[in-house]
């Protein structure tokens, strides 16, 4: 019985991948769009065709948009998350247990649409205020994403730092090193595989997040040239367009292809996490 349950889940995941892949590949196999032009083209308008009759299907603006917001949001989160984790593990563990952890868990539980709303009503006007333009764009999207991935990243970095054996710290203290030297030169290097894992999982979350980003990024499928002009991500194009395009049309196939890229990317993130875990283990046992 339990075996059937497990087999069911495995079959579900596999069929999901197959489904996305079969639809996503239709763009290239049925509609005759070349893969190269799909990932390098910069014009996204599948309703229209160019002189040669091929639809404008350049996904590069969205791919770039996704990567830029992902990297930016994680770059914003990382220093703050490491700082927080050091504080609550090394300096104020009681505060960490009683206040900080519950608060970040609460943050993790807030639905993404709420983040999007707050971004829309608070963040976008602020960005508009100091940068001009509409306020929609990469920066607003990255800031909202940063808030969303923060709890994941900080919790994982917390665990990584707390898992550094006490004996390492004692060894460093025993040599007359200060707490700061100990954290910088023993604790952080020892926790590095865990910190890397935290970043990658945070990136995976940021890469896949749709709703909140869609609400603040402006949804213009153009190459991102500035932090303050509207842009689009793979996910935002999917959520805005999917409901409007009939199954089986060229546009619909193109959206499936975007979904396939998303899926492949998330698999890549998982793979990276696995590799880090293995590398960490090898180093520990070597």
């Amino acid at each position, binding site marked *: 019985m339990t075996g059937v349950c497990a087999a069911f889940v495995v079959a579900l995941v596999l069929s999901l991948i197959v489904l996305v892949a079969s639809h996503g590949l239709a763009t290239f196999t049925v509609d005759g769009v070349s893969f190269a032009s799909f990932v390098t083209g910069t014009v996204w308008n599948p309703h229209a065709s160019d002189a040669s009759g091929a639809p404008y299907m350049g996904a590069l603006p969205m791919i770039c948009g996704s990567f830029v917001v992902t990297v930016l949001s994680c770059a914003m989160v990382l220093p703050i998350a490491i700082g927080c984790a050091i504080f609550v593990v090394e300096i104020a563990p009681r505060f960490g247990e009683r206040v900080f952890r519950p608060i970040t868990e609460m943050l993790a539980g807030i639905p993404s649409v709420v983040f999007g709303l707050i971004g829309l009503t608070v963040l976008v006007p602020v960005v508009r205020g100091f940068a001009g333009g509409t306020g929609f764009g990469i920066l607003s999207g990255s800031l909202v994403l940063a808030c969303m991935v923060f709890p994941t990243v900080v919790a994982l970095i917390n665990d990584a730092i707390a898992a550094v054996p006490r004996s390492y710290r*004692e060894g460093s203290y025993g040599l007359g090193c200060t707490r700061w030297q100990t954290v910088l030169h023993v604790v952080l290097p020892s926790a590095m595989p865990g910190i890397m894992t935290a970043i990658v999982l945070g990136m995976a979350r940021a890469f896949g997040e749709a709703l909140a980003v869609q609400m603040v990024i402006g949804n213009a499928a153009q190459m991102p040239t500035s932090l303050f002009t509207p842009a689009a991500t793979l996910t935002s194009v999917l959520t805005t367009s999917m409901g409007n395009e009939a199954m089986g049309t060229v546009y619909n196939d193109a959206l499936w292809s975007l979904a396939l890229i998303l899926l492949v990317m998330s698999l890549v993130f998982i793979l990276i996490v696995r590799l880090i875990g293995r590398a960490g283990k090898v180093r520990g046992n070597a």
Partner: protein
Amino acid sequence: MMAEMTVERPVDAATTAAGDGRRTTDEALRCEGLSVAYGEKQALAPCDMTFAPSTVTALIGPSGCGKSTFLRCLNLMNREIANCHVGGHIWFHGQDALAPGCDVYDLRRCIGMVFQQPNPFPLSIYDNVAYGPRRHRRLSRAQLDEIVERSLRRVGLFDEVKDELKKSGLALSGGQQQRLCIARTLAVDPEVLLMDEPTSALDPISTKMVEGLMRDLARDHTVIVVTHNMQQAERVSNRTAFFYLGELVEVGPTKELFSHPRERRTQDYLSGRFS
């Protein structure tokens, strides 16, 4: 390194007022009324003990008798434990290590510590030994190389690892790891070495090497070692102190203490009536 801690400071009113702060030549470290409490619970009753330079002192006693607690006071490792209160005085170079304002980091550099479980950092062998010197001073590569080689030679590890100094310290055997940890401590040039059951996690051959090392180190260091193993105390130490139920029962020259213990409790422990 100890220059700033006023090695030859004449006796002044401040030190004599707080207690007898004089430092004689046969005294490397002296405790006066040293006591420890964890919260409300007293872990060590006030005790006095003097450690002569270039000797090995063994601290023996049953588990939970306060010997490790005592050892961990001597370089203020207890400061890292919340709720731990240390009372009394620890005189080191005419200064009270427990007085407010004493630089605990300076003190730990001069009074090094080796732990029960070998605890090399997850760094290379070289970086493990270079860790302390790098934190405390700005050194050239050549100076560091020299310190690393000298420290590893001192513990007899250099010839075993000289071709793989880049290898992780965790890749060594348990005995090698413990000698690496001793080398790491020696690299910051301490005067006193505290060892907390340094061989209890090691095999007999490694134990023998570390014991030999203790005697060798005692030529120019003051070694204080906690041990569960009474034969070890007999083999390596000049003086032995017996702790029981958070109290220093008796301390004396090792031969004397083992052959003619003054206290009944010492006698009972040595004869195996309890452990």
